[in-house]
C-alpha cells in the first residue's frame, strides 16, 4: 500500500511562490555569478522539498546569497525585491513555527518504533542527520540509499520516504520501490503540490508504471495491469488545509516546484546552449561529465586486444559498466605525470586553510563572510571549507571555480597573514595542479580534436601489455607512457559503475573529475 501524506503549509507555500518569482527573474537575465546563485537557491528549494530540514537560519542564509535589499532592487527591480522581502519575512515566521514536515514525520517514526514495526527510511546519506535529529533511537541500519543497497535489503514492514517519487534529481529513488517492494507499506511524506514523476515505477516489460496506474485509478479494477504492479493508495492531507481568505489563506493547490524548476532550467539551457551530456560514474564514487556526442576511450578487461579491448565509443552508445573509462593525460611536450604523491602547491594552501580553521574554529563565519564579499556565493560555505582541507585522493578537493579558488587564496594570504601564498603566481600554479588532478587541464582546447583522440587511441593499444599488468583488480590505476614514445604523459583508468544520460550542462563543467555528489546540481 502507498500511504501518501500530503503536508500543507500556507507559509511554506507562500515562500515557495516568492522563490519562484526570484528564480524566474534570475534565470531570465542573470550573469554567470548570478546564475550560480540561482543554482544554489534552486538546490536549497529542492532540498527543503525532499529532506526534513529544520526551518532555522538555513532559509534566510539561502536568500541572503542574493545580497541586500538595495542591491536586489537596483539589479532586479520592484517585483523581485518585493518577493525577496516577503520571502525573508515568511522565512522568519517559519523559523518560529518550525517545520510541520518534521513534526509529522517524527511522530510517525516514534509511533512505528513504539509498535516494534520494522522500518527503513529511504534517504540520501547526506540527509540522514536530519532524520536522526527527529528521533535519536534511529541508527544507520534504519536507512537505505541506492539501487544496490535496496536490491540487497531484506524484507521489512514500512518504508518511509520524504518527497516525491522521482527517478532523477533531488530525492531520487529506484523504480523498484514500487515495482519490487521489499515492504508492506510505503509511507510517503510530500509537500502539497509535489507530484510524483510521470511513468515512475516502470515495469519495462509491460510498459506500465505504478504512478500512472494510481493516477488513473478510480476504484475499479484495472484490466491489463500486471499483478506485479497492483497497489492500493491512501491519501491523507495534513496541516493548513483550512480555507481562510481573511488572512490571505486560500485553499488553492500549490504549484509543483520540480516541474517549475525543470521548466526554467530547460529554458535557460536552450538560450545558453548548454549541452547534452552523460555522467560517467566510477566505482570509486567519482565521475565525469562528457558531451553525449563526444567519443571516449574505454578499456574492457574481459576482452583481449583482437576483440577490441580498447575502444573509442560514444558514452551513450555502449554499455560501459565493468569497463574502465580511460582518461589520457597526454601532451606532445614533456608534461609529466599527474600523481597525487607529486602534489606540491596543494599541500601548502591546504595546510594554511587547515591552520586557519584549527586556530579560529569559532571564526569560520568570518572566513565565510570574507569569502562571500569576494563573490564566493556558495551555500553551506562553512561546511565546504573543511572539505577543501581534505588530502588529495582521486582528485584534489578544492573550489570548483578559479574565481572562488583565487578568492580563497587572497583571503587566506591577506586576512590571515599566510605570506607563503603571496609568492609569484602561487594561486595560478596551485590552480593548474588542481585542474590536472581533475583531468581537464591537458585536454582543454583540443577536446574536439579527432586526430588527437586517434593518436591517444593508437598509443593506448601499444600499451596493452602494461595495462593488463597494471590492472590488478583495483578500481583505479595509472599507466605511464614510456619515454621512447612520441606522446608523453600517462593514462588514468577508472572502473565504470554506471552511465547516467540526459543531463544538460554548461561547457565549463564538462570533462572534469569530481565526487559524484557534486554533479547533483545538474540533475534538477
Amino acid at each position, binding site marked *: 500500500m502507498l500511504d501518501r501524506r500530503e503536508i500543507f503549509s500556507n507559509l511554506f507555500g507562500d515562500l515557495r511562490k516568492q522563490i519562484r518569482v526570484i528564480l524566474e527573474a534570475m534565470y531570465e537575465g542573470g550573469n554567470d555569478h548570478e546564475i550560480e546563485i540561482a543554482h544554489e537557491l534552486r538546490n536549497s528549494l529542492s532540498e527543503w522539498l525532499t529532506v526534513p530540514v529544520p526551518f532555522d537560519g538555513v532559509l534566510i542564509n539561502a536568500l541572503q546569497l542574493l545580497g541586500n535589499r538595495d542591491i536586489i532592487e537596483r539589479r532586479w527591480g520592484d517585483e523581485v525585491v518585493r518577493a525577496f522581502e516577503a520571502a525573508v519575512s515568511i522565512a522568519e515566521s517559519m523559523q518560529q513555527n518550525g517545520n510541520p514536515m518534521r513534526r509529522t514525520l517524527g511522530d510517525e517514526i516514534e509511533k512505528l518504533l513504539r509498535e516494534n514495526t520494522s522500518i527503513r527510511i529511504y534517504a540520501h546519506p547526506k540527509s540522514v542527520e536530519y532524520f536522526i535529529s527527529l528521533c535519536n533511537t534511529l541508527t544507520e541500519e534504519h536507512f537505505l540509499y541506492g*539501487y544496490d543497497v*535496496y*536490491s540487497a535489503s531484506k524484507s521489512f514492514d514500512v518504508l518511509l520516504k520524504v518527497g516525491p517519487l522521482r*527517478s*532523477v534529481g533531488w530525492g531520487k529513488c*529506484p*523504480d*523498484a520501490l514500487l*515495482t*519490487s*517492494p521489499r515492504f508492506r507499506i510505503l509511507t510517503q511524506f510530500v509537500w502539497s503540490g509535489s507530484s510524483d514523476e510521470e511513468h515512475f515505477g*516502470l*515495469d*519495462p*516489460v*509491460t*510498459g506500465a508504471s505504478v504512478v500512472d496506474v494510481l493516477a488513473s485509478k478510480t476504484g475499479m479494477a484495472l484490466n491489463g495491469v*500486471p*499483478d*506485479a*504492479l497492483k497497489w492500493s493508495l491512501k491519501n491523507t492531507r495534513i496541516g493548513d488545509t483550512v480555507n481562510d481568505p481573511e488572512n490571505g489563506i486560500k485553499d488553492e493547490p500549490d504549484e509543483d516546484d520540480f516541474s517549475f524548476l525543470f521548466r526554467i532550467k530547460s529554458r535557460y539551457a536552450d538560450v545558453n546552449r548548454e549541452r547534452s551530456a552523460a555522467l560517467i560514474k566510477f566505482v570509486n564514487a567519482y565521475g565525469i561529465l562528457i558531451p553525449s556526442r563526444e567519443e571516449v576511450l574505454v578499456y*574492457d578487461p*574481459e*576482452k583481449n586486444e583482437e*576483440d577490441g579491448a580498447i575502444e573509442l565509443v560514444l558514452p551513450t552508445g555502449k*554499455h560501459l*559498466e*565493468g569497463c574502465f573509462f580511460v582518461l589520457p593525460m597526454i601532451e606532445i611536450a614533456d608534461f609529466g605525470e599527474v600523481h597525487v604523491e607529486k602534489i606540491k602547491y596543494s599541500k601548502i594552501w591546504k595546510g594554511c586553510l587547515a591552520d586557519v580553521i584549527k586556530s579560529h574554529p569559532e571564526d569560520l563565519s568570518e572566513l565565510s563572510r570574507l569569502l562571500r564579499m569576494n563573490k564566493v556565493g556558495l551555500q553551506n560555505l562553512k561546511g565546504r571549507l573543511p572539505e577543501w582541507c581534505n588530502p588529495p585522493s582521486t582528485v584534489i578537493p578544492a573550489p570548483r571555480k578559479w574565481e572562488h579558488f583565487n578568492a580563497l587564496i587572497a583571503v587566506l594570504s591577506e586576512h590571515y597573514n599566510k605570506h607563503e601564498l603571496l609568492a609569484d603566481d602561487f594561486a595560478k600554479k596551485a590552480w593548474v595542479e588542481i585542474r590536472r588532478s581533475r583531468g581537464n587541464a591537458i585536454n582543454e582546447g583540443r577536446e574536439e580534436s579527432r586526430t588527437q583522440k586517434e593518436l591517444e587511441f593508437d598509443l593506448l593499444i601499444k600499451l596493452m601489455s602494461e595495462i593488463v599488468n597494471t590492472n590488478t583488480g583495483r578500481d583505479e590505476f595509472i599507466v605511464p607512457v614510456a619515454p621512447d614514445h612520441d606522446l608523453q604523459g600517462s593514462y588514468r583508468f577508472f572502473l565504470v559503475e*554506471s*552511465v*547516467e*544520460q540526459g543531463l544538460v550542462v554548461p561547457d565549463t563543467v564538462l570533462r572534469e573529475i569530481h565526487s559524484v555528489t557534486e554533479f547533483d546540481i545538474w540533475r534538477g
Partner: protein
Amino acid sequence: MKFTETDGTCFECLPEWVNYLLITGYDFAGYINKGQKISLISMPCDSPGAGLVAFGAMRYYLSAQPLSGEEIHRHLEDVKARMLFSGKDMYRYIGEDDGNAVIEEIIRLDKRRNPKRPKKEPITRTASLKGLDLRFEDETILVSSNKALPNLQIYEQLVPQGNVINEGTLQQSHSAVCMAGKRKGVSVTKALLFDTYFEAGGKKASLHELLSLVDGALDVVSRVTMYNARTGKIDRPGLPPEIVVVDGIDAFLKITEEMQRSSNNNFSGANIVAVIDRTEKREKLDSLQTKVSELRQWYEPDLQEFSAPPKGIALATYFKRI
C-alpha cells in the same frame, strides 16, 4: 523435488515462481515452430530466473529423439577434414565399420622434431562412437556413454507433465538452448547458477551442473551453450541456437542488436526469452522500453500463449509479423 538458492542447504518444495519459470522455458521450447518469438519476463529482484527458464527449455529437448549412430557417422563423413579429439590425442575420421567408428591418430609435429627418434606410425582405432568420446576442436563431446549427464531423477521430476525423457539425449551434446550471461560478466550469471540447487530421489545438483554448462574442460557432454554478451562469443561452436535465454537488460540489448545486424547470424532465427530484474537502474529500464518500442514495428504482442505469471512476475510476449 526440492529447491534452494543457498548453495545446497535449506531445501524447500519448488516455489511457485521457480515452477512457473521452468514451465515457461519448457513451453517456450515447444512453441519453436510457430514463428519467431520474443518473451520478456520481469522479476522483482536479481535471481537465477534465466537459468531456470533455460533449464525448462533444456528439459524439453531431453524428450527429443537423439541423433542416431547413422546420423552421427554421416555428419563425421561430411566434415572429414576436421580434426577430432579423444582425450588429449588428435584423430581424423576414416569411416564407419559395422556401426563402429574408424579413426586414425594424427601425430603432432612437435613429437617428430627429434630426427633420431624413429617415426611413429599413426595408430588406427575402431570402436563404438559412444566409447570414443570424440569431439571437434573447441567443442564438447559428440556422444558418450561414459560421460552421459547424471541426475536423471532430477530431470524426470522437473516437469512432471512433460514428455518422457529419452535417455539417449543425456549422452549427446546439443546447442539448441543458449544462455546469454549478464553484460557485467558471465561469471555473475554463473555465480547464481552455482548457488541454486535441486534435489530429487536423494540426489542433489547445482543448476550450473544440471544445465551442463562448460566450465573449462571440453571433455564433457553439454546441452546448453553460454553466450558472453561482453565479448560477443559463444563458449563453444555448434549449430545456431533455437532458443536464447537472456539474463538482464544489457545482454538483451546486445542480443537484439546482433539479431538485427544481419539476417544470417547465430540469433537471427532464434526465439528469445529475456529475464529482467526490475531493480535495475532507471536508465536501463528506459533503454529496454525504447528497444521494445522499436521491436514493436516488426513484432505483435501475443497475449494468449503462456499461463498467467504468479504475483511479482510480469510477462510480455511478442511474435514476428509475417
